[in-house]
């Protein structure tokens, strides 16, 4: 079965420091990978996607993600964290045949002032 995994339930980082939220995938064929963010009592907001092309993908709010085929990873990164980045982050894979997303379990990012 195709899946994505987020090995960390929570990531803590100080404001101004770089942040990384990890995601690994197990997908046959070419992976279509996404990152979404969820704020309290809100739906999911799209951050970025990788379909093909450059391994470094730039997205919304200063986030970027690095696709690494040899390590089957798609880690989310930001050079300088903000307190307002504190939220729940989901990595997801899209089954292009079904056009349905399979989500990881989520990682809670806590940015301390």
């Amino acid at each position, binding site marked *: 079965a195709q899946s994505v995994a987020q090995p960390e339930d929570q990531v803590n980082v100080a404001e101004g420091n770089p942040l990384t939220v990890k995601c690994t995938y197990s997908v046959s064929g070419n992976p279509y990978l996404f990152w979404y963010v969820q704020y309290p009592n809100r739906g999911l907001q799209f951050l970025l996607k990788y379909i093909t092309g450059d391994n470094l993908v730039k997205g919304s709010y200063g986030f970027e993600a690095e696709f690494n085929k040899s390590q089957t990873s798609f880690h989310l990164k930001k050079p300088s964290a903000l307190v307002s980045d504190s939220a729940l982050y989901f990595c997801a894979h899209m089954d292009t045949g079904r056009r349905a*997303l399979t989500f990881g379990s989520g990682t809670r990012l806590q940015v301390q002032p």
Partner: protein
Amino acid sequence: DAGVTQSPTHLIKTRGQQVTLRCSPKSGHDTVSWYQQALGQGPQFIFQYYEEEERQRGNFPDRFSGHQFPNYSSELNVNALLLGDSALYLCASSSQAGTAGEQFFGPGTRLTVL
């Protein structure tokens, strides 16, 4: 652009009852997908509607059914509610045109089953 809207925001039901949740997609989108997000978990795909038909379905029982209207809005119906159906139900809209792209999510409906 109003984005994806869902109603109601919150809902409380008792076991055995039936519930209907509603979703209006983002302007220009023709496809609606429904997801269930249990507390502390990632969303799980329920089903997807396009051209008023269920096109794809996840691993959910027949108690979960849906409908899409000519204006692309959609309903999710759950019959014979169980305690385990308590969750945030998310609607996502997208367009069939072009390659697979991001889905735009609504704010969700929080369903509590007592």
